[in-house]
């Protein structure tokens, strides 16, 4: 008698099938597996029904807190229209695999082509791939791409790049012969003089982020030009929601643009699955990692879509491949595509504006609190900004959690000497009233 509900055939049918192929038992089928390798000793509970499983999961979910969230740091609590879930959860998308048989996968393939188009249009670049794991691994892949294109092995990484991504870059470059150098910020922006002092013909790429980790916006065109002057590339990490209104990396001259697509219709989901995106200029497409979909036609001239330029990939090139990546984040890319289609040209721009306007309101409210000052008062920002508190930001955040608010992120965790700096973000979901409550509680905590 079988216990699981996920088997195609019942026990009696299975016994008949065994008999038909001349096997006495299941053990017979495993005769090639040495007996000393086999075990029945698994200390695992009995299977549960769907009802019981959901009870367990609900009770775990209930152990997590619900707070009004002003914490961003590269990962944002945006609204997701219902149609995103309704469409992306269709089994025809959800339970398909990599479109190796293009005639039977035109749905997935066309959606990826539309996704690549959306990413190119957001970033003002000429081409995009079918997605990568997340913003951090996408930035690492951008770095590797720059090494391949230039044949050089040194990278200059701005300290405005998300510190979580920088720890990942250090981890990945540790086993490879790559000279990795970080360049500090000055006044919240990339330090031009420090870059100028390090830029020479050994540098493969400069890695920058806009808006940077502190939320500051920067026109990086001059830094990109300096990099190009010594034959280095400019690799960007960007926050896609900001591209609803801010200057594009393409307009600044970027060669490779990467980023975290979570804000485009993906839930926060405690860190994943997320969506790494990558865009580049046409001349570098053949050096780009990951899957790429291209338009073509059949013998009757009908337009269709296929995975293309596969000769770059691991299943053909093995250890000489551009990257070891096999899967992309197909379903996440589909969600982003549907999200952007629903938001549309005007809605996406308007959503970005609301994020920025709400953050501007929060900035004004918090800065008016005695003892609180803008960390970078002269800087422009999209939806996230830093304030310097009169005492340790971590302690203040703890006190505000007691009052039901996740007030932001303590910058000192990653930037020594900035223990009093609090980084906060607003999305279109945060209301004026919630900002007012945050301001009132912050003022009272600082007084107390």
């Amino acid at each position, binding site marked *: 008698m079988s216990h699981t509900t996920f088997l195609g055939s019942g026990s009696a049918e299975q016994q008949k099938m065994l008999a038909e192929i001349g096997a006495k038992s299941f053990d017979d089928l495993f005769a*090639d597996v040495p007996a000393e390798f086999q075990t029945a000793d698994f200390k695992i509970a009995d299977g549960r029904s769907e009802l019981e499983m959901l009870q367990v999961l609900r009770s775990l979910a209930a152990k997590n807190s619900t707070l009004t969230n002003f914490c961003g740091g590269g990962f944002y609590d945006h609204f997701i229209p219902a149609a995103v879930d309704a469409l992306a959860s269709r089994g025809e998308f959800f339970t398909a695999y990599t479109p190796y048989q293009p*005639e039977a996968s035109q749905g997935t393939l066309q959606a990826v082509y539309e996704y690549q188009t959306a990413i190119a249009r957001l970033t003002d670049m000429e081409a995009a791939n079918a997605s990568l794991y997340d913003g951090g691994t996408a930035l690492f892949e951008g770095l590797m791409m720059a090494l391949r294109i230039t044949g050089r092995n040194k990278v200059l990484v701005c300290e405005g790049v998300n510190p979580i991504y920088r720890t990942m870059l250090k981890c990945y470059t540790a086993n490879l012969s790559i000279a990795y150098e970080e360049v500090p910020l000055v006044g919240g922006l990339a330090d031009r003089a420090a870059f100028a002092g390090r830029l020479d013909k050994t540098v493969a790429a400069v890695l920058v982020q806009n808006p940077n980790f502190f939320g500051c916006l920067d026109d990086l065109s001059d830094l990109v030009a300096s990099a190009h002057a010594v034959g280095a590339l400019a690799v960007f990490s960007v926050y896609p929601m900001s591209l609803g209104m801010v200057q594009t990396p393409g307009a600044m001259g970027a060669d490779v643009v990467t980023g975290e697509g979570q804000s485009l219709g993906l839930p926060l989901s405690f860190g994943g699955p997320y969506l790494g995106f990558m865009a580049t200029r046409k001349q570098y497409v053949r050096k780009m990692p990951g899957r790429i979909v291209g338009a073509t036609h059949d013998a009757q001239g009908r337009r269709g879509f296929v995975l293309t330029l596969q000769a770059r990939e691991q299943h053909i090139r093995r250890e000489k491949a551009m990257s070891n990546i096999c899967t992309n984040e197909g379903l996440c890319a589909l969600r982003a595509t549907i999200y952007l289609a629903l938001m549309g040209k005007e809605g996406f721009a308007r959503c970005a504006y609301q994020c920025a306007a709400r953050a501007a309101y929060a900035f004004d409210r918090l800065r008016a609190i005695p003892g609180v000052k803008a960390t970078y008062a002269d800087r422009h920002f999209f939806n996230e900004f830093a304030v310097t508190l009169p005492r340790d930001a971590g302690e203040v955040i703890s006190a505000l959690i007691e009052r039901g608010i996740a007030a932001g992120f303590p910058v000192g965790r990653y930037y020594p000497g900035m223990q009093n700096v609090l980084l906060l973000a607003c999305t279109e979901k945060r209301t004026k009233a919630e900002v007012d409550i945050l301001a009132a509680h912050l003022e009272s905590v600082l007084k107390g």
Partner: protein
Amino acid sequence: MQLIYEKSVAGRRAVRLPRRGDDARPKINAKLLRAQPAALPELSELDVVRHYTELSRRNFSVDTHFYPLGSCTMKYNPKACEVACALPGLSDLHPLWPQLRHGGLLTQGALQLLHETERLLSEICGMAEFTLQPLAGAHGELTGCMIMAAYHRDRGNQKTHILIPDSAHGTNPASAAIGGYDVRTVPSDAQGNMHLDALRAAVNSETAGLMMTCPSTLGLFVDHLQEIADIIHGVDGLMYYDGANLNAILGRVKPGKIGFDLCQLNLHKSFSTPHGGGGPGAGPVGVVEKLRPFLPISRVVKRGDGTFVLDYDAPKSIGYIAPFYGNFGVIVRAYAYLLMLGREGLRETSDAAVLNANYIQEKLRPLLKAVAPGRCMHECVFSGEPLKATGVHTLDLAKGLVDRGIHPPTIYFPLNVPEAIMIEPTESESRETLDTFVQTVTELVELAKRDPDALHRAPVTMPVGRLDEVAAAKNMDLVFKSTK
């Protein structure tokens, strides 16, 4: 079918935002703004819903078609797992909260779920510990190679290369290369077994380890595993288990107890999380005790009082391979699946998967050339060579299946089988589905003899016929350029 961009009509809208947000002006200087809005589509919600619903119908999928794609374990994805990962409290949890002071207390349920999943996978694989961080199978392989490198550095070993059988998945050598190792290929015989003499000749003091999958990509349990492990361990090398084919031995064999030191699992294969048209996956990595110090940061730790914390203090760790704790939404689905499967369900899964593959193998053995003389494991591999005389290739057979509503098996892999056809039915499929498949292949083999051109023309029932891949690579039309 038109692209969403071709359907766009100026002025249409799908989403309405709240009437607010104008209470302060954004703090953005005009020169920091983009010149013009991104050219996204302008459509009503119904336009968008119709478009993507229609696109979805142009896909084969497990929910709609038999999908015996070898090496991919296209099993059914229970719907309850989708409900689980979308629960409020899980789907809306911010990943930075645990990094706030005492922040772990805000996410106890999530940390407990991660811890329990790690314990389940450790027990299933006979490993001491698991990390759930790797974001895909290949990412797990890379993590495994980095753990190997950290181990050897710590021991003062001078290691330069990793050994990989020629039948391995392409991700293995690619991951080893990105991990900083040279790759040396070990030849195998027609049954996919490694030549022991070739292995002995390839191994030296600079061998960091061996990456292999078991059952092999030919669907057969690897011979001489003990000898292989002894040879590798003899030079302080590490045995890496690629868990791509774990579904064959689930609940019966623990990789950690048969000589392997570390492994990656593909949650989107054996643990039933949806393939999503190519991701997201998850590739947790398990290790034996001696490799525990090298696991990525952070680690979920259960304290004496039953609460959970994240530990970032691991001086020997390879560091941060993912931004947070892995593809949490995928992990939740796998955990939900494992709760429902339970102890007895593990073995029932592999039993049924192996039975289904052997059933197909025996039914098709008279028609095509089976690689295995005897039993196979979870998948059966054939060569399409017997059809060669008719001028019909494996690719043509695959396209004929498409016309008959069956997703083709994996074809032309493994590379060492000419005209390879790799069939993995999984435990999910019923006897009728298998019989229909066998019947369809039988008819196609007959058709190949009678009218081979009919198969050369296939598919004819799909929205498009065979597509010009050479033109695609030459033209590089990767994004839509509006003519408006």
